[in-house]
């Protein structure tokens, strides 16, 4: 019985993990290229969640349509915040960029609070479900998972096959070396930041496809924390590492949920956040370069 429950939860965990992974790739990309830690990460996920919600409830558009819309909104926000704020901070001490991205996050949260309000919202997108022997999966979750994998794959292809993607890799590995090759490093910064934010806002769509409730201006905080844990798992500066870090994190989170549920008088859901911190602490103590980093 426990075996089936665990297998079911692990399946859910793998799927959620794929979405988590995709939700962290933007953070890793921005850190890897610009060396900026985006503390406002979760706020951009929240923007994606609201994009989905509003398109669905106001215009009756499916969350699948929200994916490209969120990507465009995210990239536009990314370019906007890059040229207004981040461009001044790439050479500045870390504290400056931490404060600035925190401020951007707060600005977004408060703007949404001001225009839409703080109550928890949700939507109901019913596209059927499939029953496996071990668990029942709504199709929306499967779409979210497939969407995450497709986007991760596209990013991988963009990185490895295109001229701009190659330039981004070069800047990540040696900024000065890239400059010597004639790469316009400032443009690569702007593009990476925009793509990073675009991915993050898009991941907000996929996350609501998985969890279509609890949408409110402050929902991002929990995801910021998880994204940091996942990014550290995956080696912080590596978007692919982040994706696999997400898969592992989803498995751990859901797997331990089953185990915590076995302990009487323990509230398993509350324990998952404790677990996030524990994992972060352990990795930083044992292998601060990340579990998946080759070196």
């Amino acid at each position, binding site marked *: 019985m426990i075996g089936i429950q665990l297998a079911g939860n692990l399946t859910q965990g793998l799927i959620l993990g794929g979405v988590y992974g995709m939700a962290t790739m933007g953070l890793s990309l921005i850190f890897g290229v610009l060396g900026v830690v985006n503390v406002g990460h979760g706020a951009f996920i929240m923007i994606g969640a609201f994009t989905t919600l509003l398109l669905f409830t106001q215009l009756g558009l499916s969350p699948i349509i929200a994916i490209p819309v969120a990507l465009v909104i995210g990239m536009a926000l990314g370019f906007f915040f890059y040229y207004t704020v981040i461009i001044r901070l790439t050479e500045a001490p870390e504290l400056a960029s931490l404060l600035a991205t925190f401020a951007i996050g707060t600005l977004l949260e408060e703007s949404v609070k001001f225009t839409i309000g703080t109550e928890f919202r949700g939507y109901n997108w019913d596209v059927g479900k499939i029953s496996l022997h071990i668990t029942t999966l709504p199709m929306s979750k499967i779409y979210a998972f497939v969407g995450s994998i497709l986007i991760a794959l596209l990013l991988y292809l963009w990185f490895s096959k295109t001229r701009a993607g190659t*330039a981004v890799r*070069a800047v990540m*590995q*040696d900024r000065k*070396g890239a400059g010597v*090759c004639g790469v*316009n490093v400032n443009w690569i910064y702007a593009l990476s930041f925009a793509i990073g934010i675009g991915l993050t806002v898009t991941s907000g769509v996929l996350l609501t496809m998985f969890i279509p409730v609890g949408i409110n201006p402050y929902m991002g905080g929990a995801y910021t924390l998880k994204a940091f844990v996942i990014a550290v798992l995956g080696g912080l500066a590596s978007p692919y590492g982040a994706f696999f870090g997400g898969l592992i994190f989803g498995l751990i989170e859901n797997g331990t949920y089953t185990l915590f549920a076995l302990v009487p008088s323990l509230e398993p859901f509350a324990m998952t956040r404790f677990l996030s911190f524990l994992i972060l602490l352990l990795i930083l103590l044992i292998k601060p370069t990340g579990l998946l980093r080759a070196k």
Partner: protein
Amino acid sequence: MLRVKDLESGYGPMQVLWKPSLQTKKGAITSLLGPNGVGKSTFLSTVFGSVKPWGGSIYYEEKDVTYMPTHKKVEMGLALVPEGKHLFPEMNVYENLVMGAYVKKASRHREESLALVYSLFPVLKERSGQLAGSLSGGEQQMVTVGRALMTKPQLIMLDEPSQGLAPLLVQEVFRTIQKMKEEIGLTVLLIEQNADASLSAADFVYIMHEGRIKAKGSPEEIKGSPEIREAYLGI
């Protein structure tokens, strides 16, 4: 070809360059000599554009490029072999070299440039699939020079190419620089502390001290002046 006049720059509040002027002659090796910390690297970085000039002017092929961004200078045929190599450690030798042909003009000549680099450094062809981070210091230096050649330059600026190399490799580096001039027809601006080697390689020499040009002349003139040698070169 390159004409620098009264260049001023520095870092934060600290001025490093105090109006040095320098010219390179087409198809010749010009050397900027001086001990560590006199501003030679800052001079190159300012000419290349990675450090912003505070004043003065930089002309390249009769065009004012003083405030032109680096990537445009590369497109115009200006190449830099930076100090400290700055290779892409997680790319292999081939990918590092191809990255040098990134700008549009260079990418059109990618295959011939690659053939040229492999003929200059045959060992790089053997190592082409190996990660740049796993090469020896000398081989990494070859990749750095090769990558600069891949940008299809007319003027190549080398920042202390012999630094940290064994004497035998230093000879090799200077032989390569001669070849760049004689076989490829490049103009070379060479920055060095190694006075002996660069005096014998260069066609014209500038001597820098505390951010200023203190002397200039043919290598013979410099060698023939005991005051210059003693005051600035210590030989």
